[in-house]
């Protein structure tokens, strides 16, 4: 019998062809990032040439009517509202994460985690609505002498804080749970209590992950549009004094969303708004880089390998060392200058601030150089090459003392700032001292109390925080449902709006939202799943793959308002689709693309390798193996991810504001080149401009919430169904 030859018959192996096809599609993610940056940057050039970079960056006033486009109050507002949100969210979020990971009985853990997922799934316009109807009046009544209306930085920060909570909770919880069990055992085996182990071993070991969580929370807060716009009061001013949390402010995102609808396309004003978006992008990129660095550091700490560099990383690595170091130093100096500059802007004009910024920077750099020199003379250490080595070279005792000084100074300052809004400065300062003293006493008291009593107190406090968070969620949902549910009738769901949306039904908005969902999925699903398959099954660790991954990370972190601007400038204007369903679907599709890519990739990677080997060993090609064996095995998680992104599409407002929606439609059009009504935008419009329609607002909010939450329920049902069916 003649045996068949094993020589290949075709020069092109079918798997190689597939691989290059998939690579081509994966490259689309990279090109999207490129085009977003191109369009945002390209459109902001006008403002840079008309106004000048210096005036844009240092101008103290933003008044489009007078042609003033100074971004200082706007950027300051973004920084302030984010800082406030983090101050609110970090203690609560980390405490809740510690509770879930370390204290809660294991059978409650998944319940608590799903509760935090529900938090994450609520659309931002719903949070804005809650802020507008509950938080703002509450603040107005609590601080009647400080707040006329309640719209304020404080309201924005609290609301953003609530929105950042789920990110902080879930990422911190993951970090805490990832701490090896052996650390806990080692600590407990020495007779430490659970609480001592948590606070002295587990939390420090997870600190990088917790920092990453906080940074991600910052990223969420910086890019948030709808909620802030609805509660911040939107005056483009720098608070006076700078820590006056009762001041109205207007962050970057709100400014773009508020002014874009009224702007002349191609004007300086139009371009200045893109410039703001550019700054927002840069901020978000810096934030995501920071979190990457931290994650890498964690891996190093646990002895794993670092992520290898992408194309840009390789280029950087090829540069001569002095150049790179020089660049790093320049970044540090620029950072110091900017911090000093922005702080001194609060009590000085911009020229004075520049002078102060320079002198502070010079002082800090000079003193640290002197310090280094002394170390060198004493032979303590060679000159450290970068900041972290520098910090390591500081003796332990000095570190401990300065840590204490910084802590007390911080406590005193924060209390002083808060109290000085109510009382005169002397009283406020005394209050600061009193709190710091109380802090010191409490700490030493706790040190003397029996460790089990401390544990009881601590665990009770954590439980209280957890209950607070849950009640908050219940309150938000109940508040909307109680008002809205009775309004929902068959006529409401199937009727057309009347009286500019104040009465009648919301049929066109429901259909519009469904159309947006279907359209965006038509675009995102094939692209996203194929890219996910490429990354999970075909991609080797090459610079190209890493660039794709980085692009996906960038897309994932890009604020939705930036997608909105990109969609408007690219699809509505450049391609001439107009304000249309098509433009909206593409924009939303691109926005959820990273989510679908990620979930597909992760789902496929979770499929054990033996399955692939089993199929390949029978002579199946890689593509056949992927499509017939791996994908079916992972389909549950993929579907879950898709449903979750549908929920996100349903609730997003900022990306469709300038690309696809109108607020009122008496006759529905079915052309993809016509605009649609959509539920989230309808809610925003009614809540901010539709006077006299409180019941309608709650009803729209209820329908939107039911739609989004049922997606979540469906996703978790699907997950459970497939979890049960497939086990390995």
């Amino acid at each position, binding site marked *: 019998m003649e045996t068949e030859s094993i020589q290949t018959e075709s020069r092109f192996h079918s798997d190689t062809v597939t691989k290059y096809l998939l690579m081509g599609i994966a490259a689309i993610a990279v090109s999207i990032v490129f085009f977003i940056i191109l369009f945002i940057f390209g459109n902001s050039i006008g403002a840079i040439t008309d106004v000048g970079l210096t005036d844009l960056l240092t101008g103290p006033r933003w008044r489009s009517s007078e042609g003033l486009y100074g971004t200082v109050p706007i950027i300051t507002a973004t920084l302030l509202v984010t800082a406030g949100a983090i101050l609110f969210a970090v203690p609560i979020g980390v405490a809740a994460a510690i509770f879930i990971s370390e204290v809660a009985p*294991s059978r409650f853990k998944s319940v608590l985690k799903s509760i935090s997922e529900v938090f994450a799934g609520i659309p931002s316009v719903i949070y804005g609505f809650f802020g507008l109807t509950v938080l703002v009046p509450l603040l107005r009544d609590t601080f009647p002498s400080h707040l006329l209306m309640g719209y304020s930085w404080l309201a924005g920060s609290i609301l953003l804080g609530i929105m950042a909570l789920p990110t902080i909770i879930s990422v911190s919880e993951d970090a805490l749970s990832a701490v*090896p069990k*052996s*650390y*806990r*055992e*080692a*600590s*407990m*085996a*020495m*007779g*430490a*209590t659970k609480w*001592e182990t948590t606070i*002295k*071993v587990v939390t*420090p*070991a997870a600190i990088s992950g917790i920092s990453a969580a906080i940074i991600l929370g910052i990223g969420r807060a910086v890019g948030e549009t709808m909620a802030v716009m609805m509660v911040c009061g939107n005056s483009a001013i720098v608070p006076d004094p700078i820590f006056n949390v009762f001041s109205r402010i207007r962050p970057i995102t709100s400014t773009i969303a508020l002014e874009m609808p009224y702007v002349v396309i191609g004007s300086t004003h139009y371009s200045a708004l893109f410039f703001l978006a550019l700054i927002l992008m840069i901020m978000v990129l810096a934030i995501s880089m920071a979190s990457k660095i931290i994650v890498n550091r964690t891996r190093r*700490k*646990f*002895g794993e390998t670092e992520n290898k560099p992408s194309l840009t990383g390789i280029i950087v690595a090829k540069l001569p060392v002095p150049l790179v170091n020089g660049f790093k130093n320049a970044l540090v100096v620029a950072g110091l200058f900017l911090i000093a500059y922005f702080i001194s802007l609060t009590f000085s004009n911009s020229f004075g601030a520049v002078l102060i910024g320079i002198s502070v920077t010079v002082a800090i750099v000079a003193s640290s150089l002197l310090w280094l020199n002394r170390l060198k003379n004493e032979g303590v250490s060679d000159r450290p090459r970068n900041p972290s080595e520098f910090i390591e070279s500081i003796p*332990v005792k000095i570190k401990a003392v300065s840590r204490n000084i910084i802590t007390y100074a911080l406590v005193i300052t924060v209390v002083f700032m808060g109290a000085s809004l109510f009382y005169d400065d002397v009283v406020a300062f005394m209050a600061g001292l009193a709190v710091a003293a109380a802090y010191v006493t409490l700490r030493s008291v706790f*040190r003397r109390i029996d*460790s*089990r009593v401390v544990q009881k107190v601590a665990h009770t406090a954590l439980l209280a925080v957890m209950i607070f968070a849950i009640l908050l969620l219940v309150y938000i949902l109940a508040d909307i449902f109680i008002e809205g549910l009775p309004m929902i009738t068959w006529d409401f769901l199937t009727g057309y709006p009347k009286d500019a949306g104040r009465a009648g039904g919301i049929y066109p908005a429901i259909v519009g939202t469904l159309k947006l969902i279907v359209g965006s999925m038509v675009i995102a699903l094939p692209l996203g799943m194929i890219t996910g398959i490429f990354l999970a099954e075909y991609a080797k660790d090459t610079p190209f793959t890493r660039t794709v991954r980085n692009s996906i990370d960038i897309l994932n972190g890009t604020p939705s308002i930036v997608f909105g601007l990109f969609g408007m400038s690219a699809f509505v204007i450049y391609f001439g689709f107009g304000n249309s369903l098509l433009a909206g679907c593409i924009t939303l599709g691109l926005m959820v693309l990273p989510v679908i890519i990620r979930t597909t990739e992760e789902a496929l990677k979770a499929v054990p390798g033996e399955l692939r080997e089993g199929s390949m060993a029978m002579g199946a090609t890689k593509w056949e193996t992927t499509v017939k064996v791996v994908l079916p095995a992972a389909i549950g998680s993929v579907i879950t991810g898709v449903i979750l992104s549908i929920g996100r599409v349903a609730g997003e407002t900022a990306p469709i504001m300038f690309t696809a929606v109108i607020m009122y439609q008496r006759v529905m059009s079915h052309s993809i080149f016509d605009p649609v009504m959509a539920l989230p935008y309808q809610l925003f419009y009614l809540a901010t401009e539709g006077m006299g329609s409180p019941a309608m607002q709650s009803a729209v909010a209820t329908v939107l919430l039911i739609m989004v939450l049922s997606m979540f329920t469906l996703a978790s049902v699907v997950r459970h169904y497939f979890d049960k069916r497939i086990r390995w």
Partner: protein
Amino acid sequence: MVMIMDNVIDIQNVNLWYGDHQALFDVSMPVQKNKVTALIGPSGCGKSTLIRSINRMNDLIDGCRVEGRMMFHGEDIYGPGTDVIKVRKKIGMIFQKPNPFPMSVRDNITYGPKIHGITDKDKLEEILEKSLREAALWEEVKDRLDKSAMSLSGGQQQRLCIARTLAVSPEVILMDEPTSALDPIATSKIEDLITELVKEYTVVIVTHNMQQAARISDYTGFMYIGEMVEFDKTDKIFQNPSKEMTDRYISGRFG
């Protein structure tokens, strides 16, 4: 059975369940002061379960239930009035894989004393040096006390863990296969260390390595499927065991 005069720990008829699954059956064993007691037996025989139940590390596992008496100086470790924290302070434990905290060498050692209320800096320094010396690690790390403990080699990490346990001055040190993750040279260092340590402390060690048990222990218990098949002086177990099953395991005919 050997009659013991100076028992630090006395395990009497202990049964242990993980949920519905019974892992220990009526186990009895004495632990003598300043001696090395080794537990041997095939995987899954319950030797780790037994050693972990001595300082109640099994409390951390949901659904774990212990019956019988486990006495420490005549007091029941599982008694209703017993303070688990005091138990663990007196009876320390070394684990299979070295598990230093991701902190500096110094912070690793001073962690325990600080937990137990020692704040005096000089006292802590004293404990630091004493424990590291006792663990035969001082010379190797004295110049890098503030470097991360994760930068040490595996063998050094395990000795660091031993020093960390010594720092809370326990009476008994439980070791759960302490050398199974180490290379032969690091293993022999740990073995030498154990021989030194029993002058001051009492050691119970679980090992899958029979030669190790023969080399370093004074008493050996052979366990099989949750039962203590035989417990005696090490020489006796290895040269002239009373039970046939022990003999077959020692001579490598099963296990």
